């Protein structure tokens, strides 16, 4: 496998220098951009596997950049935030980020997050036999990571796809928050309920006929989530 390509978007030159040097040393191919606008331009020119995106930037700002990237691409995005406020983290995930890291961070932690985000789950046993789900106007094609609801097709990001396929492989069974987090995000996770909340909501928007009254992705209060498969 060739080295993953990472684009660092940050307005601070020192951070760009450190990231470029560190990530290159750890075997990534790195490029950087000084602003959201420049980053979007760079993404149009060549393809990347992951974007490290600073939240606080003059001009367009990280949040808006994230939304713009997400509107046309399923590329992995990790946001870097200074503010430790939960609201901002949820906002970042809502804007389409796969994960976030709070500044200042330790390099091993960042590398672990990058690896986790880039990691593709090995095919879970039985997953290859998954039949496309066709029910109540929803057509979920797991092989192409595409979902069609009443003729509207949308693509799932890698993380959304992993979460959905994990749930779908165990239909009608309540899966605990911790189990889902560790299976989809990695063994270092377990208490980040806000990740689940945001990603389940994102999935609901894509597959539920009425996201406010979910039929497939059901919340089991206090316990976890369950994929309800109509018999």
């Amino acid at each position, binding site marked *: 496998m060739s080295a993953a390509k990472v684009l660092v978007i940050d307005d*601070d030159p*020192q*951070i760009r*220098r*450190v*990231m470029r040097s*560190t990530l290159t*040393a750890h075997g990534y191919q790195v490029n950087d951009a000084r602003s959201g606008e420049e980053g979007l331009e760079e993404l149009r020119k060549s393809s990347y596997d992951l974007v490290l995106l600073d939240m*606080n930037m003059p001009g367009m700002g990280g949040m808006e950049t994230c939304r713009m990237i997400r509107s046309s691409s399923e590329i992995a995005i990790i946001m*870097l935030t*200074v*503010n*430790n*406020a*939960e*609201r901002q983290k949820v906002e970042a995930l809502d804007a389409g980020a796969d994960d976030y890291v709070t*500044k*200042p*961070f*330790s*390099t*091993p*932690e*960042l590398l672990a997050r990058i690896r986790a985000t880039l990691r593709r789950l090995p095919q879970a046993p039985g997953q290859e036999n998954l039949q496309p789900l066709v029910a109540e106007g929803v057509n979920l094609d797991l092989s192409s990571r595409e979902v069609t609801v009443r003729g509207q097709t949308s693509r799932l990001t890698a993380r959304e796809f992993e979460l959905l396929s994990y749930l779908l492989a165990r239909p009608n069974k309540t899966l605990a928050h911790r189990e889902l987090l560790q299976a989809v995000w990695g063994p270092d996770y*377990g*208490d980040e*309920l806000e990740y*689940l*909340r945001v990603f389940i909501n994102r999935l609901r928007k894509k597959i539920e006929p009425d996201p406010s009254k979910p039929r497939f992705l059901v*919340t089991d*209060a*206090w316990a976890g989530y369950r994929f309800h498969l109509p018999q």
Partner: protein
Amino acid sequence: MTAVRSVNIAEAAPRPSVDTQQAPEPPKLSRAANKTFRLILRSTVGVGLVVATTFFFSRLVPLNATTAGFCYLVAILLIATKGGLVEATIASIAAMLCFNFFFLPPVGTFTISDPQNWIALLAFLATSLTASQLSARAKMRALESEERRNEIERLYSLSRALLLIDTARPIVNQIVHQIFTTCGFAGIGLYIRSTGEIYRAGLENAEVEDKLRESAVRSVVLKGESPELVVTPVRLGGEPIGSVALSGGEFSDAALQSLVNLVAIGLERANAQKVVTQAEVARQSEELKSTMLDALAHEFKTPLTSIKAVTTDLLSGSPNALQPHQHELMTIVDESADRLSKLVSDAILLARIEGGTFRLNLGTHIPSSLVNGALRQMKSLSAERDIRVDVPEELPPVRVDAELIQVVLTHLLDNALKYSSPGSPIHIGGRMGDGKVILFLADKGKGIREDEQEKIFEKFYRGKSEHHLQGTGMGLPIVREILRAHGEDVTLTSSPEQGTEFSFGLPIASGGFPL
């Protein structure tokens, strides 16, 4: 009582000085004398007119008594129309005497021979008196209505002026000035009860100040020693909020009351304006503070991010990557960066809490995951310690700001790690109590002396024996402020050499879980 500030309007308001100082009213004494003098003058003119009539008709154009009587009546009516009742009455008596002396036989004496002429003379007197009275009354009415019209005009321009008051300048001064310029009073005093201030224009004596205060306190109308001074309480909703002293004006009681009501409304508006302005200023300064704190956090944390990224990367390399002394030096840089980062976070959090710029982001959370989250954040510091966690999963969910409660837990844990020996255990537990979830954190450290137990919650206080330990002195104040914002508080139990336990309650959430 509050200090009295007497403000001469000439110094308080920049522009009005011209009006107040250049146009002093004539002295009060001469005003009264002037009135009497004019009355005498008009009476003399009236009597003069009667004498002239007498001379004209007795010497130049002799008439009979009947015609002369009518001519006298015409003269009296003229006098009554132009002058007042007093002048007309004096002229009537003068005319009666002249009529008797020059026209009623025997002419040239005050005696009357024919009894019929007595009746004529009395009828003349009665007619002329009635005529002058009627005429004077009509004139008075006209004068009064003219005065009312004048008052209404003045009140109208006063109310307009009060509405157009410049709220950027002291409003009470302007009210006094506006009354002064629009209503034609010689002197005005305004006493504001809430501040104890007195604003005066054209009134000098200290007696006015006492009267103003008395009037406001007792809520009664007082007259001054000089009869023109009236002191009226200014009431708003029945409550006296101050008083107004007015002198040298010609306002009726009703107009005076309207004026006082206008002043009350003006003052109320001034107060409302003040409150609005203060709230706006407070909001703006809070917004500014919040923005500055965010910028500050960003500016400090950005270079720290570069430093941390470098140190952690170098330290995470294979053991041979750095020489032992390089590894040691790099560890020092790394720890210092951590410390600086914590210092910045604590200082900004404390400033935010104290500045009131933070709002609780309340949500429903399970106590055990709050504790686990905090432990995860402290993983690097607490990895080598014996930490027993005993927070039952069955504890009911609590309604708190999860982020801030985790700040509380990490600060308490940080404290326990620092102030107990490395080998001693730390116990984190949870239980029900008093209808809330109680979380506690206990260490087996040296304990906190009783005289220090309250002081450790003060900002920047450091334990006497712990000056060698690194800390910001902001941890426990932050803990207390966060819990107080939740309507709770932290309790401390400590005994020497037995250890310390911090515990706090968290309110139980009602209703479901918002996942």
